[in-house]
């Protein structure tokens, strides 16, 4: 009898444990954060898991962006290993929606995630045909870092007064470096190239990137004018060469303006003695200035097997992460977009967070061109060589990008 009682007690214990375990919702979560920022994110997730022990457990997998965008549609196609939630790039969203990979996040917005906590001009970029497909996590933008000590050394602190740096001001700094006899070792600017470097300047010069039908329409002459401008600065000796390592030069104190992105800030803020500020990418004038920004965005892959309970847990997690995203700014050097966080003094004191300030909202372009991956690839193929090699026809660069995207679409 005792044995039977013991078995029954053990059985009831096991069953209660099973019931307890079943109550815990596991969220399979993919992100593109494989670097130092991934460690900060994991720290937040660990804190969330600790606070929600027994009810929600987030299982985070960081995957390199290129791999994630290959794996994700295949997972959705086969129905195997589909994540419940992911953070991806906003630029990729239209194609993912077009391929039927994503589902809309209406359920999350109705069950714990408040759209009012996020900037509407970013939210609206992920609203396609009346359906909300994404919730912004942060700005992922091109940024120019400024070595304040060097700027003071050459007496050019005034260039930062209006929060924008123009190419004319960069020339001034370049001249000041020359006048100090340091032009051989110290440079004024580098070129980031790629999407962040080219697109805002092309549009600032009056170029149209995408027409009303969503087709890429690069004007080769305007693109050429942009390249010509970069080339002039290089030929005048103000800009670093193609083989120079701008990052090392900036850290080493031999580069005044360092074009890069929000992702570099985590590294820079760890360097002791580096006195720097962050501003938007250099522009032609403060009035017309533009800044290309992406946004790491919460998205949900389509999955018929995901339950409402899991979606509720996802909503709790997304909102919690937003409310605790200050560490994403202070530790990872990024620009989270949860309003309550962006309004704190601690957030606003950080160099990169000017991107979330109200004055920037008119200047930031969040691109969502359908064939973004093709444009990105075509830009990487033309590279930056035309800036440094005077034998290359500047008008051929934009034409090559347009041709490659057109050829790729025709072959898809």
């Amino acid at each position, binding site marked *: 009898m005792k044995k039977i009682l013991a078995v029954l007690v053990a059985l009831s214990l096991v069953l209660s444990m099973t019931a307890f375990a079943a109550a815990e919702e596991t969220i399979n979560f993919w992100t593109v954060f494989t670097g130092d920022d991934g460690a900060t994110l994991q720290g937040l997730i660990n804190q969330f898991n600790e606070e929600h022990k027994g009810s929600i457990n987030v299982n985070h997998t960081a995957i390199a962006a*290129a791999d994630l965008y*290959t794996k994700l*549609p*295949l997972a*959705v*196609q*086969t*129905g*195997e290993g589909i994540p419940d939630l992911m953070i991806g790039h906003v630029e990729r969203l239209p194609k993912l929606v077009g*391929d*039927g*990979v994503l*589902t*809309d996040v209406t359920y999350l917005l109705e069950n714990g995630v408040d759209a009012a906590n996020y900037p509407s001009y970013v939210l609206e970029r992920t609203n396609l*045909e009346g359906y909300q497909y994404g919730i912004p996590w942060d700005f992922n933008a091109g940024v120019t870092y400024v070595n304040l000590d060097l700027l003071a050394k050459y007496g050019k602190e005034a260039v930062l007064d209006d929060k924008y740096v123009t190419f004319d001001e960069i020339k001034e700094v370049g001249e000041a470096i020359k006048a100090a006899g340091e032009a051989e070792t110290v440079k004024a600017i580098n070129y980031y190239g790629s999407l962040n470097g080219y697109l805002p300047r092309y549009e600032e010069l009056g170029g149209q990137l995408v027409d009303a039908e969503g087709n890429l329409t690069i004007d080769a002459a305007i693109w050429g004018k942009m390249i010509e401008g970069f080339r002039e600065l290089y030929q005048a000796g103000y800009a670093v*060469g*193609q*083989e*120079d*390592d701008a990052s*090392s*030069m900036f850290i*080493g104190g031999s580069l005044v303006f360092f074009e890069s992105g929000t992702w570099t800030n985590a590294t820079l803020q760890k360097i002791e003695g580096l006195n720097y500020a962050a501003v938007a990418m250099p522009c032609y004038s403060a009035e017309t200035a533009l800044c290309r920004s992406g946004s790491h965005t919460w998205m949900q892959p*389509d*999955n*018929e097997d995901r339950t409402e309970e899991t979606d509720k847990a996802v909503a709790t997690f997304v909102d919690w992460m937003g409310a605790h995203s200050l560490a994403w700014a202070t530790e990872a050097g990024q620009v989270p977009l949860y309003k309550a966080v962006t309004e704190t003094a601690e957030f606003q004191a950080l160099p990169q967070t000017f991107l979330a300030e109200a004055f920037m909202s008119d200047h930031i372009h969040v691109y969502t061109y359908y064939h973004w*991956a*093709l444009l*990105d*690839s075509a830009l*990487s*193929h*033309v*590279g*930056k*060589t035309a800036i440094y*090699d005077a034998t*290359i026809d500047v008008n051929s660069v934009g034409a*090559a990008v347009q*041709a*490659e995207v057109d*050829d*790729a679409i025709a*072959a*898809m």
Partner: protein
Amino acid sequence: MKRNTIATGLLLAFIVSFVLSGVTAVSTAKDVVVSTTVSHLASVYSLSSAAVLILPFIMVFMLMALLSFLAKQKNVGFMFTALSVVCYVAFLIAYCAETRNTSMYNTLNAMFQEQGLRVKKRDFFITVTPQWTCYLTVLLGLATCAVSLPDLRTSTTRYSLKCELEPYAYIAPHVLFFTLFTLVPIIYGVYTAFTKWDIYNEPVFVGLENFKTILFAQGNTYYGQLRNGLWNTVKFVLYNTPFGMVLPLALAMALRKVTRGNKFLQSVFYLPALMSTTTVMLAWTYFFRKTYGFAPNFFGTTFEWFAPPYSWLMLVIITAWWSNGTNMVIFQSSLASIPEDQYEAASIDGANAVQKFWYVTIPNMSYTLMYTFVTTVISHFNVYGQPNLMMGYNYEGANAVLMMYIKDTAFQQGVAGIASAMALILAAVIMVVAWIQLRMMMKDSKN
């Protein structure tokens, strides 16, 4: 009529019925019913679910069964027919259980959209039912099995059956993995070259269009990329192969002479081969880069090591440093197997060191040299990591090799048809070069 002949006829009917069979997919939304028929052959290339991966196996088993019956191997034919029937039934069950097959979803969703309906994928359910021909196919397969069923009543026939089938049991694991991980991907890869495919949606057969584009469409981006990529790949092979053969041979011969520290030096020379391309490229880039690089600062070099034409020199140095260890070890083992008395005999005949090398060492190593020469050339044709990590597409793609363009086109852009066509051309070039190498060396060895 003999049972083998009847079985062959039934098997052919089984195959024909399979080819003509398909499933019907139906979906309903807001009282609108749409349906489509998907043949098994179309399913093979839809890549729309894990279940379709069973189809190549069914076809391989059918082919093996047919060959067995034609070779009068009735028992073996029975085995393969039975396997194909089992796989076919498994495929039907798995495929019809899918409620949201992507390939069918795309077709049916387009039909809904034509009728002005927008149905979200999560509300989209598909009912899949086999056509009557599917049941006929299964019956024909079973009939083939019944006719070819071995007689197991006597121990003699049981023993002969065991002898006949046993070899297949031995090779089965290899054939299974070879089919799954080599044969099927090759078939899909070749087929992809004849399609327009964005990796996610269903491929569309376009015949030779991709080849026409990359081979003849002057002005097209991919025409330029194939030419530039292939020419840079050939240059990489031409520049690197001599060093990839001569240096390891020299190191192996030198180590043979070194008696003290031989193993230590062997480990040192082999060590780079254990490193990943990324590690190797990072180390060399930090060493030679213009900004704060060791070489420019220590030796005072002013030119850019990673810009053409020096970039080719860097590629040769780095590749030689990284990969020489592998060939060196092969050469060492080959050198060790040369009988010492041949050298002694040559010495008695008055041969000097050079003569010994040409008339004793080289002839004894001919097969090893042939093998390493062919494998080194093939591996160099497949170069990707070094030029990609060193300078990517900079300098107008001066060092961009074909594998870089293939990878980008397929996975970055999602233009898999063109990428596969480029890959097939690279494979054809490698095969032709390897064939010429082997022909030349076989001729030499015969002489």
